[in-house]
């Protein structure tokens, strides 16, 4: 297909397209969204108390950045996500690898994990408020419980998938059982673990908003809730947009991490 025209390539399944076109298309989708948004708002088709204009969202952003309140709320949410996510990952990664590799660990943990991971964490929120209060610890707990059991199951699967041949080869080279864990299972799981972190980070952002809608006095979910009461739909839009943007940034971070740490896998 080397001599096919650009059009032909765009219409051919799995044919590659030039990098510039990839970039243009990626920017294009946002131009379309913003254009449609402008069309329905500036024309007065949709009333501004339901859908704000792009400029009003922008000016809200500028004024909230100006008085410093926006940074406080962004950091408040990001902090909760970061703590909850790290706490969960630090426990789930080693435990999940053990669960996928040692039959006793699996036999012991499986019944509890499979029970817990089907419970929606939102069901626990009232309980957490009762136990922990409405401070940051409560929101961190929501995130931890929201993603921990999911992470555990995903990592156990990843470590179960490590080739037995690699483990056997390692033994015949003089590795002890401990070496198999640290020098085969851990490195072999790394690409899968980073992919898993990328996915569950997205869930953590979902749960932080849930937690903030219920009980919080700062954060992006909290300002949305407050804005709803005051009919400040531009603030709600700003908050949603920021969560999406932060998600995009963390996603890129994990992509980069995957490339840097596991260039051997690709």
């Amino acid at each position, binding site marked *: 297909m080397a001599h096919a025209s650009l059009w032909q390539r765009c219409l051919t399944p799995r044919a590659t397209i030039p990098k510039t076109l990839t970039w243009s298309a990626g920017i294009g989708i946002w131009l379309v969204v913003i254009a449609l948004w402008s069309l329905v708002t500036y024309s007065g088709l949709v009333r501004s108390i339901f859908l704000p204009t792009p400029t009003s969202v922008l000016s809200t952003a500028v004024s909230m950045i100006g008085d410093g309140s926006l940074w406080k709320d962004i950091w408040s949410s990001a902090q909760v996500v970061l703590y909850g996510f790290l706490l969960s990952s630090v426990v789930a990664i080693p435990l999940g690898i053990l669960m996928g590799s040692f039959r006793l660990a699996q036999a012991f943990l499986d019944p509890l994990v499979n029970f817990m991971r089907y419970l929606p964490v939102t069901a626990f929120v009232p309980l957490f408020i009762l136990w922990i209060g409405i401070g940051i610890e409560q929101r961190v707990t929501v995130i931890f419980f929201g993603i921990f059991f999911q992470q555990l199951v995903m990592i156990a699967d990843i470590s179960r998938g490590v080739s037995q041949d690699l483990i056997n080869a390692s033994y015949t080279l003089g590795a002890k059982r401990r070496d198999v864990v640290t020098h085969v299972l851990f490195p*072999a799981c790394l690409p899968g673990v980073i992919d898993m972190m990328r996915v569950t980070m997205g869930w953590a952002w979902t749960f932080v908003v849930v937690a903030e809608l219920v009980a919080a006095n700062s954060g992006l979910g909290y300002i949305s809730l407050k804005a709803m009461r005051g009919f400040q739909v531009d603030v709600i839009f700003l908050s949603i947009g920021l969560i999406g943007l932060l998600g995009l940034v963390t996603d890129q971070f994990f992509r980069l991490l995957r490339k840097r740490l596991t260039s*051997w896998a690709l």
Partner: protein
Amino acid sequence: MGALNDGEIMRGGIQPSMLHTGSRTCLDIRQIGLTFSSGQQSVTALEDISLQAAENEFAVIVGPSGCGKSSLLYLTAGLIEPTSGEIRVNDKRIDGPGADRGMVFQAYTLFPWLNVRDNVEYGLKRRRLPAAQRKEIVEYYLREVGLERFADAWPRQLSGGMMQRVAIARALANDPDILLMDEPFGALDSQTRLSMQQLLLNVWGHNSKTVLFVTHDIDEAILLADRIYVMSGRPGVISRTIEVHLPRPRTSEIVMEKHFLDIKREILGILHHDDT
């Protein structure tokens, strides 16, 4: 190859066939039985297998697929346990895997997160050899398998033949008492397979080593072996032991020689007899 541990490298024209004449037994497999059972059913994979390999001997087990020849290697490696009998290497009873029995597998088993050099170094690191000695050994074996220029490559960048060359270097770098090879060239195309057989013979010629090699390829067995154990299957038994007196060094030319053809005919006869 103990010379390597003294920081000295032994190379060149010693013919292993000269070394092992009259030498002592390295591998002693005694009346091994292996039965797999799951629930009510049990399958006897190996029945009363006994075989020996003298020090520095190249022993080959040839047999049809499913005859249990690979199981015999895994038993010797200590990766599975026999139902009955015992295996001794240098008069030490096998009880689990260890660095004294190196293995090259049929599947590609290079650690994908380590480059070629670090793969070869893996066993040396586990055995906590000093860095300078590790470096010397790794460089020697990479040269032996002709991959010194690929020391920094990732396994995924190598061809199948190159990966198996690294696997051979990695196993030999540990200076095991015996090298176990489980159809190591089985997944390679026939051209690569021929050059790998030659490479293995060269490396083995430079570094005297007891080898137990498993294959279903009769030509490969005769080309490589001092002694061939012909196995037939279900349950696996040793049908015959054949000594190969073809002179070394050997090249693929020997497939034309009368002694080669006589042995081939004999093995085909045994295996064909089993089929009918």
